[in-house]
């Protein structure tokens, strides 16, 4: 390890044009500041974020304030319309629908986040490596993705689910296996354009290794696309699980999530039990809209072509 050669500072020759003091104390520090600024300027993202916050509070804090029995089946209390005691009525097993929405929301959100997280990590690394290395490696890695993308996700899912009995973790794993493909493609595209940027060449000039360049420069700069793909993945996973439930290949009872509740409710749509259909449908749609709003807003904010003064 060499030591520093001292260098003599020279006097500045010309008056300095000091940068404006933009780091006002109200703005959070750290690289989060860049994000914070971008977010505050973007009303669509804020609305989406607000909606997600309210829904998360409903699912995770709600049960502390509104306690219901979601364990014991009480057939004598089945299919009660909304009224005192049960603001949104009860379902076919006698569970309180409002309480069930909170419980189901928890697993829907957890599933969405878990899938988004695994997907993001795998997809980011795969995409970044393919994009950075380029050439033959990239071509092979991309054909693998094309192959998996050629078969519709739901088709693969139905095959796998018909072969293996689904569990929550199994479904998370399966959904992740299907969703990282899109993330990898997006990240690769971004990295392909980033790697020609001069700061990446500068890092090479300093003697930076490939790993360092990918992790310190490429991945942080692709953060925007990664967030976009992550939020879209949350929304898509919740929707896909609901489709599986509708096709009767979702998670078996007593598991609850919004998709399962909705599919179950739809069976009694024509009996006039509307409280089993519309509440889960509404909250499911609102949640998916919220995540899509965030993703779309971040996407627009990143697309230079869409910028305006």
């Amino acid at each position, binding site marked *: *390890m*060499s*030591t*520093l*050669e001292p*260098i*003599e*500072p*020279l006097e*500045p*020759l*010309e*008056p*300095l*044009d*000091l*940068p*404006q003091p*933009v*780091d006002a104390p109200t703005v959070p520090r750290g*690289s989060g500041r*860049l994000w914070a600024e971008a977010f505050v*300027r973007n009303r669509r993202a804020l609305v989406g974020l607000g909606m997600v916050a309210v829904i998360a509070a409903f699912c995770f804090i709600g049960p502390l304030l509104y306690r219901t029995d979601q364990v014991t089946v009480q057939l004598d209390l089945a299919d009660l319309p909304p009224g005192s005691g049960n603001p949104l009525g009860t379902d076919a097993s006698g569970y309180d629908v409002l309480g069930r929405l909170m419980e189901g929301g928890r697993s829907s959100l957890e599933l969405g986040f878990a899938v988004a997280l695994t997907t993001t990590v795998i997809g980011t690394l795969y995409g970044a490596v393919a994009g950075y290395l380029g050439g033959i490696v990239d071509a092979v890695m991309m054909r693998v993705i094309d192959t998996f993308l050629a078969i519709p996700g739901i088709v693969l899912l139905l095959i796998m689910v018909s072969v293996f009995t689904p569990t929550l973790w199994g479904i998370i794993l399966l959904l992740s296996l299907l969703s990282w493909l899109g993330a990898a493609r997006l990240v690769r595209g971004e990295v392909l354009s980033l790697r020609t*940027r*001069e*700061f990446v*060449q*500068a*890092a*090479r*000039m*300093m*003697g*930076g*290794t490939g790993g*360092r360049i990918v992790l*310190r*420069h490429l991945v*942080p*700069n692709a*953060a925007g696309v990664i967030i976009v793909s992550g939020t879209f993945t949350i929304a898509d996973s919740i929707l896909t699980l609901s489709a599986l439930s509708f096709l009767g290949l979702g998670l078996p009872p007593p598991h609850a999530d919004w998709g399962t509740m909705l599919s179950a409710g739809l069976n009694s749509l024509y009996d006039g039990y509307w409280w089993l259909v519309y509440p889960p449908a509404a909250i499911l749609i609102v949640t998916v809209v919220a995540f899509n709003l965030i993703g779309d807003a971040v996407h627009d904010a990143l697309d230079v072509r869409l910028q*305006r*003064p």
Partner: protein
Amino acid sequence: MPLLEVSNLTTHIRTRRGVVRAVDDVSFTLEAGETLGLVGESGCGKSMTGLSLMGLLPPGGAVVGDSSVLLDGRELVGLPDRELRRVRGNDIAMVFQDPMTSLDPTKTIGHQVAESVLLHRGCTRAEATERAAEVLGLVGLPHPRERLKDYPHQLSGGLRQRVLIAMALANEPRVLIADEPTTALDVTIQAQILALLADLRTRLGMAMILITHDMGVTAGHTDRVNVMYAGRIAESTGTDRLFRGMRHPYTQSLLASVPRLDQDPSVQLPTIPGRPPDLTAPPGGCRFAERCRYATDRCRTEEPQLTGADDHRYACWHPTSGPLPAGTTAAVPRPDGPSPSPSPSSADRPLLEARDLVREFPVHGNRLPGRARRVVHALSGVSLELGPGETFGLVGESGCGKTTLGRLLVGLDRPDTGTVTLDGTDLGRLRGRELRERRRDLQMMFQDPYSSLDPRMRVGSILREPLQIQGIGTARQQKARVAELLTEVGLPERGAELYPHEFSGGQRQRIGLARALALTPKLIVADEPVSALDVSVRAQVLNLMNRLQAAHGLSYVVISHDLAVVRYLADRIGVMYLGRMVEVGSADDIQLRAAHPYTAGLLKAVPVPDPELERAKRGTGISGELPSPVDPPSGCRFRTRCPLARERCAEEQPVMRAFGPEHTAACHFPLSTPLADAAAGRLNGGGVPGSAGGR
């Protein structure tokens, strides 16, 4: 009555940050047949003025107040869009800056030119196409009739700009607004396009508004000039008087800070400190006061109005009387470095030596079986030598291979054949870890200040990164070094806490330089170090580069398309053309005693900010377009554009011959006689022009 009379033109643009007063109370007139220059740095409102006249403002933009634009006595402001459309493209036409993005990629050029005719002339499609061919011929497009069906991407930048001009001129407008029409083009093509515009103006008798930031272009191609600053006109007068007897300090500083070919390189360039004001809240007094060397309290509180005689108006409380005299505060002598540079031919070994570098890139996606592999000949046998503390300048037009050469010199790319030797070590033999460690001697300064710094890292981390990678010093030492580096490039230490986007372009270039310095390299390759910067900021960066070289005994390779920049920084200059070095010599050799016709043509094409000199040399540039580097001409590659070319030039590749102690050129019919005892040619067998350092 003037052809165009603009009075009190004020344009506001609503943005998220507030209302930008892009054009503020601008008045001027334009007579038939004259060219008016709108000159200033980016953001001064010159382009917005043009767009306001056309009624083509961006979303949120509007012409407000009692603005008036009279064309032949007819008021255009407030005209319904339907009426205004008849004026656009018919009476007033516009040529935009970037020929690469200004043509619809999915329509043929014939279609795009005819569209304009069809719209205003009420003729048949056949007649419109006929007219399109005629106009394309007028603007000098070779074989216009056959090219009507060409798509834009099949044409070079220069030809595309000709198509755009044809589109604008198709209906013989009375006013042509040319917004930086040559900024995106090479100097030789720039000279052709400017000459074309001047010629067409006379032939069609139209008036022209030439919007430009280039004082050289202004000097040669305008009759009168409006200098704009922060949305207002600072000074307005005839071109000759502006250059000889300007009254506004901004004009004075702007002109003085431009490096000129005849600049004394031993004298520091005067600079303009600071940056233009924010136009959402312009300052109360004179807008230039903050950056003005003559500013007083009155300037900061009271806004000066345009005063003076009709033929020379200026807005200043303390008008100057002409250019900055030599030997003022600005003319500080350049500090001398520890190793007095201009004598690299000293006994010691050169720091860097490149031998017969060849680099070819495959043409993308073209590997059909049975067809020869096609390659871009980026470098075809280039050699050069560089001594410690020396600055070598590389000039040439885009596609000449200068950037490829720069990348090979620092080891960012490897040559197909040939060697790069640094201090006796062959860079091509180094691999992995060894190469990474060697990098500390070789650094690079990049062109684009917006892409050369990682936007997600603080400046402190950016400057520490090279030290971390190379494992130099403890964390504390590294931090101290960052502070030193910032001080050295004239930035405050607290800058380490900020992100790149919080700095201006010039400041970012300084950070880039500081990063290159962090490892105390022996050589810095600077690829177009100032071409992305505004004129007033360039001088600051150039001065800083000189100062740091003197302080650290650095060697530079400066790559630029701008001969004046290279002339100002370099001890020796290499001129490149299509992958070959055509002439190497001391800066004076190149400028005063150029032997190669290409060098001479290049020198003539560079616009000089002096109206008399600039007008005297009209029509003497290099003709034609750059041939494709995929299929370069045989023999001398310059022969297709050379006024002196003969048969021999096509048959035999010229070798480097000596014209002076350090002056070599590769030409069969040079402009001066080579030294009788020239041995350089025989030393370099195989017909490869080599030994650029030739001695």
